[in-house]
């Protein structure tokens, strides 16, 4: 759960930063809420289309990882449901939330990579994107090694 929260907070921070940088505050007062929302989405798409391709790829990967984690949480709830309704509980299932957390972690790693390779982020401008990618790959290797160890 900690990882999930951290990840969501990171995503919000990144998207928020993008919006702040790219949007031109074009909404007008007095318009209907619907047209406001349309304008907002349109400006969001426009702003996001200006995002570099490599960052879009990372975003795609983050979405994939989060989706996978969400599916697993649902499976976990399904198992809890079965347990509460009288089916037997396999104790090894209790390890799976942990595994879900591991999977979320790959999303967190991807977000970290995104922060470092984003050219508009001045904080890491002295760190080359190749170094950031290498870190990302190394951390993922360790992560998947651990996950594999828990299988079966």
């Amino acid at each position: 759960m900690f990882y999930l929260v951290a990840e969501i907070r990171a995503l919000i921070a990144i998207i928020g930063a993008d919006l702040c940088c790219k949007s031109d505050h074009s909404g007008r007062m007095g318009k209907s809420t619907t047209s406001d929302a349309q304008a907002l989405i349109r400006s969001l798409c426009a702003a996001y289309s200006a995002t570099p391709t490599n960052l879009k790829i990372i975003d795609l990967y983050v979405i994939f990882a989060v989706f996978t984690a969400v599916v697993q949480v649902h499976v976990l709830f399904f198992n809890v449901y079965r347990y509460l309704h009288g089916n037997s509980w396999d104790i090894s299932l209790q390890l799976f939330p942990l595994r879900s957390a591991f999977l979320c972690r790959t999303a967190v790693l991807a977000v970290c990579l995104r922060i470092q390779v984003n050219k508009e982020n001045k904080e890491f401008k002295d760190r080359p994107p190749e170094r950031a990618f290498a870190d990302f790959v190394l951390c993922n290797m360790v992560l998947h090694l651990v996950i594999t160890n828990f299988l079966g």
Partner: protein
Amino acid sequence: MRKSWKTDSLDISGDWKRAFPSAASSQSPGLSVSPLKSPSSPPRPRSSDLALRAAMARLRTLPLALLFLLLLGVPALFSVALGFSADSPTDRRLLVLVDDLAIRSSHSIYFRSLESRGYELHFRLADDPKLALQRYGQYLYDGLLLFSPSTKKFGGSVDLAAVLDFVDSGHDLILAADASASDLIRDIATECGDPAALVIDHIGHAISQSDVDHTLIAGDEFIKSDVILGPEKIKAPVLFRGVGHSLNPTNSMVLKVLCASPSAYSANPKTKLSNPPSLTGSAISLVSVVQARNNARIVISGSLDLFSDKFFKSDVQKSKSSTKHEKSGNEQFATEISKWAVNVRHHKVGETVEPAMYRIKDDLEYAVEIYEWSGTSWKSYIADDVQVQFYMMSPYVLKTMSNDQKGLYSTSFKVPDAYGVFQFKVEYQRLGYTTLSLSKQIPVRPFRHNEYERFIPAAYPYYGASFSTMIGFFIFTIVYLYNK
């Protein structure tokens, strides 16, 4: 994982025999609570009896409950002879305590019937100074017949506590009282049950030339138990003259074998009745039996005359009834001694050896053989209500066992998904039979680390997620590196 285990079989036998004199003619009705043995009973393996004793030892508390009082009139004979013993049913010694050795002749039919069943009777005066129930810590007798209602104090080392200890140790007691019952006798009965003991006078249900008080009653409100009174219906009423007693309703171990008719009441026939009698109708128990948790059996009769030759031989006619019975009902009281022997087995389905331990979720089979001592031989006991429990603090499994019509009860079930020290328990209590209480301890262990399923279907989404994430990572890496 299969493993072979050593076989360990437990043979437990409990017995209780109930003996009712069966011959129509000369049987004297008697309640014998004691280990009456039958002459022809085959000796049982002693080890099994010891095993039962051990099993019973825990259930030591002996809430004896009972009591008596009541005078009634009308000739009826009633005999209940219950014998229980965990030992070999042969060569049992009974101590008969009497006020007067004349009882030996006046109740000779009853005593003879006991002897004919193989009991060795030792007659003593109740105040014999050399009286002793035990010597060097060993009980000298297997049962005690107290036919001495007016005794104020026993002789020798016998006293109230000694008698109760005797019963507490699993021996049997037959107690007969009458209107002259002393405080001592009442105390013993009270220890076994309800303290209220009143003389009762029964009206309207007895016809006798000499009885003007209607204190001689013909009782025919028998307990409905084939086991205690025998499979044949008792045809004639039982004659009773003595005190009635009431039973403590909270004591479930006491049974009224013969209770008074609805028109009976408890009072002194010589005095005028100023208050309503405190004991009336069928609340009055004339003859009761107690089976303690240690299977000691006690018969309490409010009438000593009930066992007498005179009552045994007299004819019976109930008032307002035109039928006259040639003989009082004692003949029908013949029942047999039944005894139980038990052999317990359990094993995993598909195996025959008995493991020392089970694992959760094992399938196992449990079987027990139950025999009944019929008085002459061991017969298989047939019933459809014998249940086994798989017990740890509370029953996790309670199953009715099926039997093969040869006394072998068996069932199979899956060990529950809980580990700990379980017991196979058979608690079988049926009216008139020795309580069957078997328990066998068996540990149940959890899965070993390599006994879990390696991959379980419920976890496939997790496996899939793990691999899809790895594949996704691989594809992402390639796309990211080559997208420029």
